[in-house]
């Protein structure tokens, strides 16, 4: 009898222990995830002082964004707000906040924090890239209730939610109102708190930032590691060496290093759709340039036909890139007929040097012409210089005599400003980052008031330029989803047919991974940086990488 009771008691106790221990073991957080990256930007944990790349690399781990990601497809999805609605007049966006969110000091995240954060991003001292635009477009922000906030705009801003998603921009980062008001900006910058899945631990300037995992089940995912260290290692070969020795688990790399990393036994992870390498023409619309070969759209098209994109993908990008969609569009672009345009791009961005030469002859340049080409690379895309050099070689084959001039990005950027005197009649390499909202990027490149104004400017806005402006204005005011898609397609078509900005390849983000240090994980399409991914990175024993 006693033995029987003892057995039952032991069994019950065993079941109890198993029940108590099993989930804990499954969710145990241990070890340190070490990530080596080439730049930590401003290395500040105050979101209003950092730009987009730095925000996405390291601020993203500890701050949530009002609008988040679509983890499956890429682009915009739920974030701090689980949904949002546009008012019938198009002048108010209402964001419905996910309940139960807390900051790292235990304070509840409410609509007051959202209002405070957006207003802080818009403030005069803010270095947010879109601060001035927000000040102009946002009329007021109202707290409707603890979990609902309404953003009133001066005119319809259909792209507002996208602009508050980290898929697009950093301005949606949510900061703790009560904490900042209590301790002040300086103390907050020293001891920042957010609501993300990682808590701030230490910031060693010029060296690293350390974070500690939250222990509750965060909506973005509960980290599998106990700590996350993001190391600043500017030299790529050193980063790869660190991953090989196990001093780092993951390191950002460029396409030129992919092969050697793979040969060394490292896993190479590619993030699809993070950028487009493009080339573009300056001042082709200007009357004084009308006699230049590049003023003719067919000549520009011929230059595109002379590019063997598959060779570039294979040999410059080591196979880790793909044929592009039209300018600034991707498979995940919102309100856009991606499949249709993919087919269009495959046909129109084909390699056809014979046709290119024929077009040049028809346009009066049977022996080619002289083309001035500025080769440059935006930060983090050094491979663009190699692409630019390849382009020059390919154009030479159809008789175009290319004068290639290399520019460091910081020296090239000022040339675009003002009257663009040094670039008129030139072509240059350029880049567009992977973002789901095409209109934003189009405005920056083609608006007659924009810095680049590649289709025309205020004094010289010809027919195509005016048609573009009309379409763009209709698009940003259109509330109907189907009509909006049609207008986006039309805007893309107008620009694509001008051959003023020509995509070369759709690039990816690349990472070298030590499979003994981290398990298999997937990045977010279009989001190069991994700041929103670390919490979903498993330990190697949790999910091993497939054997090669």
């Amino acid at each position: 009898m006693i033995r029987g009771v003892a057995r039952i008691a032991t069994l019950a106790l065993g079941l109890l222990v198993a029940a108590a221990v099993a989930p804990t073991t499954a969710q145990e957080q241990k070890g340190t995830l070490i990530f080596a990256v080439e730049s930590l930007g401003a290395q500040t944990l105050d979101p209003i002082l950092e730009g987009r790349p730095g925000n996405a690399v390291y601020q993203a781990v500890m701050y949530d964004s009002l609008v988040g990601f679509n983890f499956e497809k890429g682009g915009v999805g739920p974030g701090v707000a689980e949904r949002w609605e546009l008012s019938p007049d198009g002048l108010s966006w209402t964001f419905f906040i996910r309940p139960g969110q807390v900051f790292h000091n235990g304070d509840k995240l409410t609509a007051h924090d959202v209002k405070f954060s957006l207003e802080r991003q818009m403030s005069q001292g803010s270095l947010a890239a879109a601060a001035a635009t927000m000040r102009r477009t946002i009329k007021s922000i109202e707290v409707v209730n603890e979990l609902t906030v309404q953003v009133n705009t001066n005119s319809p801003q259909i792209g507002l939610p996208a602009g508050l998603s980290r898929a697009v921009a950093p301005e949606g980062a949510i900061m703790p109102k009560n904490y900042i008001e209590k301790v002040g900006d300086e103390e907050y910058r020293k001891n920042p708190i957010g609501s993300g899945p990682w808590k701030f631990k230490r910031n060693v300037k010029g060296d690293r930032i350390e974070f500690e995992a939250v222990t509750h089940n965060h909506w973005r995912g509960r980290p599998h590691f106990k700590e996350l260290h993001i190391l600043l290692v500017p030299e790529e070969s050193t980063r790869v060496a660190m991953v090989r020795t196990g001093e780092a688990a993951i390191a950002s790399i460029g396409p030129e290093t992919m092969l050697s990393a793979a040969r060394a036994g490292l896993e190479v992870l590619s993030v699809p759709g993070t950028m487009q390498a493009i080339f573009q023409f300056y001042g082709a619309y200007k009357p004084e340039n009308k006699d230049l070969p590049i003023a003719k759209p067919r000549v520009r098209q011929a230059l595109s036909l002379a590019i063997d994109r598959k060779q570039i993908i294979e040999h410059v990008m080591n196979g880790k890139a793909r044929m592009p969609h039209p300018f600034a569009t991707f498979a995940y672009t919102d309100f856009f007929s991606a499949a249709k345009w993919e087919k269009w791009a495959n046909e129109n961005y084909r390699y056809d040097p014979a046709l290119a030469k024929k077009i040049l002859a028809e346009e009066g340049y049977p022996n080619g012409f002289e083309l001035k080409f500025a080769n440059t690379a935006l930060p983090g895309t050094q491979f663009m210089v190699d692409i630019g050099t390849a382009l020059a070689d390919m154009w030479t084959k159809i008789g175009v005599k290319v004068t290639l001039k290399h520019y460091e990005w910081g020296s090239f950027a000022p040339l675009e400003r003002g009257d663009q005197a040094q670039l008129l009649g030139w072509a240059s390499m350029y880049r567009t980052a992977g973002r789901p909202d095409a209109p934003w990027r189009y405005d920056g490149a083609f608006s007659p008031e924009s810095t680049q104004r590649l289709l025309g400017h205020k004094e010289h806005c010809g027919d195509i330029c005016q048609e573009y402006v009309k379409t763009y204005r209709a698009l940003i005011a259109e509330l109907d989803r189907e009509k909006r898609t049609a207008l986006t397609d039309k805007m893309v078509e107008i620009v694509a047919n001008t051959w003023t900005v020509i995509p070369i390849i759709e690039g990816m983000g690349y990472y070298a991974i030590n499979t003994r240090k981290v398990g298999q994980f997937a990045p977010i399409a279009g989001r190069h940086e991994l700041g929103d991914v670390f919490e979903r990175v498993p330990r190697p024993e949790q999910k091993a990488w497939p054997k090669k």
Partner: protein
Amino acid sequence: MKRYIARRLMQGAILLVMVAMIVFFLGRLTGNPVDLMLPEDATAEDREAMIKTLGLDGSVLDQFVIFVTNAVQGDLGRSIRMKQPAVEAFFDRLPNTLIIIPWALLLGMVAGIPLGVMAALNRGGLLDRFAGTVAVLGVAMPSFWLGVLLIFVFSVELGWLPSSRMGGPDHYVLPVITLGTFLVAGFMRITRSAMLEVMESEFVKLARIKGLAETTVIWKHCLRNALIPVLTLWGVFVGNLITGAIVTETVFAWPGIGRLTYEAVIYRDFPLLQAVIILKSILILTINLGVDILYAYVDPRIRLA
């Protein structure tokens, strides 16, 4: 001696003013930090707003006047990128550079000076040729390449040493070798040529005629006199190390002032760049002044010149 020091201080002050002007105006010719802080699709409106927020909206001359006015009060401005006083950023990183320099100098002297003496004593011999090879390699090998090579061999392949970053004593080995290899070559060459010159001098012949042991002649009389140019070179090398550790600090992810300078240039962080160059210049001028004073004590002819 006081007049000598005063004259050198005056020269240093003039040099500093020139350095400040060159850095201020040349830096602004090469671009604008706002272009590097904003995304490619930023609107002109956002650009103007950021320029204003960063205080870059005045004319270059206005900015220079503000810079000079603040600088004479010891304020070299705030880093645009790091959002902290530029002087503070410099002194935060300076110890990381200074901690590595003595070890590199020690390596250079401990290996380079005896090697130079040996080479001079075996002029034209096998040892001299070996030393010559060391000198050529030390000067010709780019520190970038050497650093990467050392990481590959000793960290990746052998697993003996950490590949990078600050840490325990083992973290110092590869950066010190990378920085010190050039110094070994430098010290070896100058010691060898100085030794050869001294060994031919009259007082050495006299010492030998007096019957002093050859060891005493070489290591006491010859080397002591040969070290005078080495002392001069020491000052130059320290200056080179302070300004030229950029590559080594970048390869080994060492957060020193070399990398800070590089970052200031890349990000067009004008206030930081100005502060770093001016403070480095002050450091180098101070070191050179110290060496000159020492030199003047060692060789009185310097004072008269």
